[in-house]
């Protein structure tokens, strides 16, 4: 195991995070605050409780997931796309670094950043609504698992993308809609029966549901199912990454 390499990549990526602090941390926190003001305070005050939880508190897990998913994908994809674009990837390709080590460095750094972001949003929420966390350990576990999974997914997008547009298209066209429709702002129970069934095909439903359960003990789907679905998606990403490196797809001609 080339530990110095993992460390070097991790450090390098974290330095990039702190260099672009406004873009990577401040702006998601700001936009989440806006959501809290609009949905939590302004609209939420006119909404009833959902399963015994005030609407403002109810949307916290969903909002965190919304940012977490988007930021995980964009950070991790950008982290590996940038060297491809600038040409500095030659160094990674000619270094004694195995695919696993590269992934640990890049995805590890992106995940760290995502978890930091999630916790920061959680803190920010405190200023707007009171909430409690029923299962803090599970909450952290879901946060970490989701971060790692979607950073891996972002890493794949970054490897696959060969222009900036491709880099944006999946987060924008797929992940954001799935998150909005995945129960960030409502409970799946509130949907008509047909849409409830359809929602179960949305992987983000499981993430948000499981995460919300760790806060309030209530969930749209079984929590074990949530955890398993997340793990399954992580596994899928791992398989795809392994395949990419084995075949050299879009990396080595």
């Amino acid at each position, binding site marked *: 195991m080339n530990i110095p390499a993992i460390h070097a990549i991790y450090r390098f990526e974290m330095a990039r995070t702190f260099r672009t602090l406004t873009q990577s941390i401040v702006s998601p926190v700001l936009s989440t605050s806006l959501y809290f003001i609009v949905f939590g305070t302004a609209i939420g005050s006119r909404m009833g409780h959902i399963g015994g939880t005030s609407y403002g508190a109810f949307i916290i897990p969903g909002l965190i997931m919304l940012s977490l998913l988007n930021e995980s994908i964009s950070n991790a994809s950008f982290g590996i796309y940038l060297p491809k674009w600038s040409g500095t990837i030659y160094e990674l*390709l*000619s270094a*004694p670094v195995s695919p696993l080590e590269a992934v640990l460095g890049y995805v590890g750094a992106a995940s760290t950043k995502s978890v930091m972001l999630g916790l920061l949003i959680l803190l920010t929420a405190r200023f707007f609504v009171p909430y409690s966390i029923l299962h803090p350990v599970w909450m952290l576990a879901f946060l970490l698992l989701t971060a790692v999974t979607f950073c891996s997914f972002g890493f794949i997008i970054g490897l696959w993308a060969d222009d900036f547009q491709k880099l944006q298209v999946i987060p924008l066209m797929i992940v954001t809609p799935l998150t909005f429709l995945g129960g960030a702002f409502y409970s799946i129970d509130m949907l008509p029966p047909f849409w409830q069934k359809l929602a179960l095909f949305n992987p983000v439903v499981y993430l948000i549901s499981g995460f919300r359960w760790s806060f309030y003990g209530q969930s749209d789907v079984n929590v074990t199912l949530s955890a398993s679905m997340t793990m399954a998606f992580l596994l899928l990403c791992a398989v795809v990454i392994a395949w990419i490196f084995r075949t050299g797809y879009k990396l080595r001609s």
Partner: protein
Amino acid sequence: MNDQATSISHAVSVRAVSKTYKGGFQALKSIDLDIRHGEIFALLGPNGAGKTTLISIICGIVKPSGGTITADGYDVLRDYRITRAKIGLVPQELSTDAFETVWAAVRFSRGLYGRPRNDKHIEKVLRDLSLWDKKDAKIMTLSGGMKRRVLIAKALAHEPSILFLDEPTAGVDVELRHDMWRMVRGLRETGVTVILTTHYIDEAEEMADRVGVITRGELILVEEKRALMRKLGKKQLVINLQTPMQALPEALNGYALELADDGTTLTYTFDAQSDDTGITVLLRKLDDLGLGFKDLHTLESSLEDIFVSLVRGTP
């Protein structure tokens, strides 16, 4: 067995390596090449000849379509951890991390190649490349020549024993070129094997121990530079005549003579290696014929002339 023994005794050993890119373009046909330990090897060739492809395959950036490569006896694909740790690469393109500082970028490279932190070594590399006072500068603020130095520093950060320099002096000013040459010689003194590609022939002429010429994906020649220049080098004696001649006198038939510049210049081509160059006899003949001359000088072909004639296929 024998094959393995030879490959261990070489810094890099390339056997029947070919490369056909996806679109069907055959960049390398079947390359065999041995690089000796501690030598400076110059790979010459026109643009698109396959120089960068060959280097990229050895360094692991491009996958070969066929053939095997060993570095210090280790297979570059199977034992990539060992071989890549030995190899440093300075790419042709100025690909740098714009926002990083010089120090951070070079330190990153060392870590990436699996070496523990060693600030002393990095300081030495930066000082040797006159980059020390720029160590805290962001790379994007540096000039092209300085960025080239940063790439070299990155390649040397992990103390490689084999260094590839792909067009190291392309677009670089004279001062940096000489600095670079000095640095490469210094590296050789510490036992580092250096392989460089260039299309500045004078660079190869100045630095290389051996020269390989690659064109259209084929290595058409590998030779000691001195032997090559001796073997393929031509010498010419140029005689400026006092009075112009209309044609060569019959008495001079049989000599490799050319009359030019309105009959005022006589050029005699001879074999520099031969014991008897024929100069004395020729000059005596001219004297006998009463052909007086104002001036005479000899010309020696440079590596550039040799290269051009090789690549054009007209030796």
